[in-house]
């Protein structure tokens, strides 16, 4: 291949990627471009392409690919600090470190070291304190270390903002999650007002917020609003696997409001993502919600359901007829196995507790029709 050829190819791939919405196709185009640049030894181009790749992978639901691309860039930036501006990477490091606990094969020690490392990296540019505190809070929360989480929550929430701080909408959304964790549903909703009224938003907000408020609204018996956020929120997330956990929240909501058929449609549509998603935490959220949905169908006495499930699915049936109990058993096992892996790595019982919460959800069932034709 001539020089011209491959450069043109890279250009073509980058152009294509720019036209695509976040998702697998975009990530693949950029990976391909990065490999071409690597093959031809063009380090600068390879760095530039990976810079885009980290974004696309982060926001397109491939956190493992973001991590790998980041590791490569970081290596280059460390070796050639003048050539590769590491400032570019500062912001991305936050995304990468924030997802480390999603991978059960990354050890606690590695996660801690990565947190210490980002703290030192940010200290060198004398910024980002607030961001690091949030990362520490969220990591501790996700890993079930409640005492540490509380300690960093207090520090995070009072730390001043700077240019490395997440946008206001994201920060607010993360605050809301804290109140939901603690069952402070009213407070969560109060805080969410700027987001719900459309005054505060970004690329992922209100998408995430709509999903996380469904359960609080149900508990507060504000079902009309919940339905509204479901109907508005689901289309925002239904085409991007980065939102798999939020899909789980919508699925759970449909099961809780006894909209089982709608719930099955979501299960059918998104099981494929859950089967090979790099974030095991998101897989867990989906499978846990699906196991609740399927347990409702079992409770209703449904023996079989017709579903178009992916060919790669372990129980795949050509005839598209599935035994509800078998499906339920499968997703429940998935959720349990993932929970066990996380709890072992974290040395806490957070995921066991999350499973228990799911099992107890049948107490919260509150039938409420969503019957609005879908556009």
């Amino acid at each position, binding site marked *: 291949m001539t020089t011209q050829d491959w450069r043109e190819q890279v250009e073509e791939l980058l152009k294509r990627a720019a036209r695509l919405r976040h998702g697998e196709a975009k990530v693949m185009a950029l990976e391909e471009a990065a490999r071409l640049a690597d093959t031809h030894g063009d380090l600068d181009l390879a760095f530039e392409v990976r810079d885009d790749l980290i974004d696309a992978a982060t926001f397109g639901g491939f956190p*493992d690919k973001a991590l790998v691309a980041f590791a490569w860039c970081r290596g280059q930036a460390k070796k050639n600090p003048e050539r590769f501006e590491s400032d570019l990477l500062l912001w991305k490091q936050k995304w990468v470190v924030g997802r480390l606990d999603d991978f059960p094969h990354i050890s606690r020690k590695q996660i801690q070291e990565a947190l210490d490392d980002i703290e030192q990296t940010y200290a060198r540019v004398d910024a980002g304190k607030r961001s690091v505190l949030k990362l520490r809070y969220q990591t501790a929360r996700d890993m079930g270390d409640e005492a540490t989480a509380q300690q960093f929550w207090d520090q995070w929430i009072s730390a001043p903002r700077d240019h490395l701080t997440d946008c206001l909408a994201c920060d607010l959304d993360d605050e809301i999650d804290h109140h939901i964790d603690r069952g402070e549903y009213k407070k969560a909703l109060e805080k969410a007002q700027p987001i719900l009224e459309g005054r505060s938003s970004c690329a992922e907000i209100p998408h995430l917020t709509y999903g996380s408020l469904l359960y609080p609204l149900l508990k507060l018996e504000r079902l009309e609003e919940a339905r509204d956020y479901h109907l508005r929120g689901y289309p925002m997330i239904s085409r991007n696997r980065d939102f798999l956990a939020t899909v789980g929240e919508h699925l759970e909501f449909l099961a809780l409001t006894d909209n089982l058929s709608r719930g099955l449609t979501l299960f059918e549509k998104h099981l494929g993502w859950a089967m090979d998603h790099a974030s095991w935490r998101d897989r867990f959220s989906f499978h846990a919600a699906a196991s609740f949905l399927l347990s409702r169908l079992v409770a209703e006495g449904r023996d079989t359901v017709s579903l178009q499930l992916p060919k790669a699915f372990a129980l795949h049936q050509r005839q598209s007829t599935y035994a509800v109990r078998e499906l339920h058993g499968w997703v429940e096992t998935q959720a349990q196995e993932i929970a066990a892996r996380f709890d072992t790595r974290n040395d806490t019982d957070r995921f066991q507790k999350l499973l228990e919460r799911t099992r107890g959800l049948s107490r919260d069932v509150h039938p409420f029709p969503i019957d609005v034709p879908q556009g």
Partner: protein
Amino acid sequence: MDHRFQINLRGVIDLLSHHLYSSPGVYVRELLQNATDAIRARQLLEPGHEGTVRVELIEKQDGGLPTLLFSDDGVGLTEEEIHRFLATIGESSKREALAEHRNDFIGQFGIGLLSCFMVCNELLVVTRSVKGDGRTMEWRGRHDGTYSVRPSEHPLERPGTQVFLLARQDTAELFTVERVRQLALHYGGLLPFPILLTAQESTARINTEGAPWRRKYESPSDRRAALLAYGREVFGSDFIDCIPLKSSAGDVEGVAFVLPFSPHYNAKQKHRVYLKNMLLSESAENLLPDWAFFVKCVVNANELRPTASRESFYENETLAKAREALGLALRRYLTELAKDDPRALQRLISLHGLSVKALALDDDEFYRLVIGWLPFETSLGMMTLVDYRRQSPTVRYVSSLDDFRQVARVAAAQSLCVVNAAYTYDTDLIEKLPRLFPDAQVEPFSAAELPQSFDELTLDEREAVFPLIKVAELALQPFQCDVEVKKFRPKEVPTLYSSDAEGAFRRDAERAREESDDLYGSMMDSVLTGAQGADRPLLTFNFLNPVVRKLAAVTDRNVMKLSVEMLYVQALLLGHRPLSAKEMALLNQGLLGLIAAHLDGGGEDSGQGGMH
């Protein structure tokens, strides 16, 4: 007697201007809204009352600040109603209350007036109600929060309301004829009654014709031309087509314009929407089904509920029904294209293939209609699935670019047609095929499967390559690569390196480990342990290739090993597989080794000959 508001008026104005309103020009919208509401209320009492809004710019001879007069012949307000709207203002310091008050006539009137304080310090409202005793009342309010209400010394002859705004030094640029005209047209261009603008002693109607889609035209082509011209005027684009929109749910009507370019993936189309003929938003997003990102539209809705921020519509049953109806109109348009004008459809697909594909995924009937027109990239060139099935009953496809590149060249030479379904929606579209056409078969294909379609060796050939296989397996052991020898076309290709999709990612992680520091390097190890799939890659030698045949016959094991290593590296490079450090070392040492072997093996003659 002067009164004082019970609240901090500055606070409310601040709230309005910073949170509720995007620009100070919004006061024109609010005044038009008030006038419209008043006229509608009067029409309920007096059917047949047409209604007129008059806007007059009164400029001072001495160059002093101008005054703007907004008047309507609507219902007007009684004294009691004036006090009620004042009370409303008092409660308006909370956003929620504001949103609530917008839904009633009096509340909206008060909030609308407040917005005027963004551009002036003093307001005079003179009003006479159709109800009551026929007195004319006046209310004078100032931005410092003081106001007075009294019977007017200049009674109005007929019911209606006049609002006087005295410009402020810093807002004078909003009080020019041109600005006022623009703003009134912007917000009220579709209003079904006249808006008259008077300035410099001449009066003209601003909104001449009402909504363009409600007008009558001589012919369909006149209509199309007029609507496209309107689209250009509104959005500044030369659209390729326009589609009428109508929904009885929400009482929505308007027109969708087909974009003349492929939209950027995250550019949500922003639609211009009117609520009861008043401009509500220029950036409404939730009006169309989410596959319909190939159009931008202008619509008026009479029965949809705006959200508090007035940027879009409240997501309720009516909106869902309206969205479905508008989606149907777009779908009907595409369906008719597919039936009547396939060339136009193909042009549309070339620009808006993604929209068409997204709809085909959601809608079976549309899928059946359009699948024959959707082009797919294959190892044998672009073709539709219908073309494909003419030559092969089973549609084979790969879902990753990497797979496609590995497969394409060799597959083509075997006349094997494989679809590149790495583009958005393509895999889903192909997998949908057998569900709608029961006789169709589709099968995912992977580069790793390609060697299975190659010809096996004969027994003699097997014997002949046995040493090569043994040497190659040993040489490639450190690279965890398996070896096979088969026969495939094109014969110019000596080897084929194939791996599953995870294989490429594993190689990326391995190289990142080499490049990165200890911390992230160790995480790459974890990623590699945690990664799934992990089928070993395979290097297939092509026994049809003359070099491979010669190589199989080489007796010098060292030369054979070096050659295998070089072929391995070449296969990687041909497949765009960046080399790891270990493979790079192989390349460097291997080249030298081969040169040395050649120099040695070529005999002293050539070696010495070179010295001369």
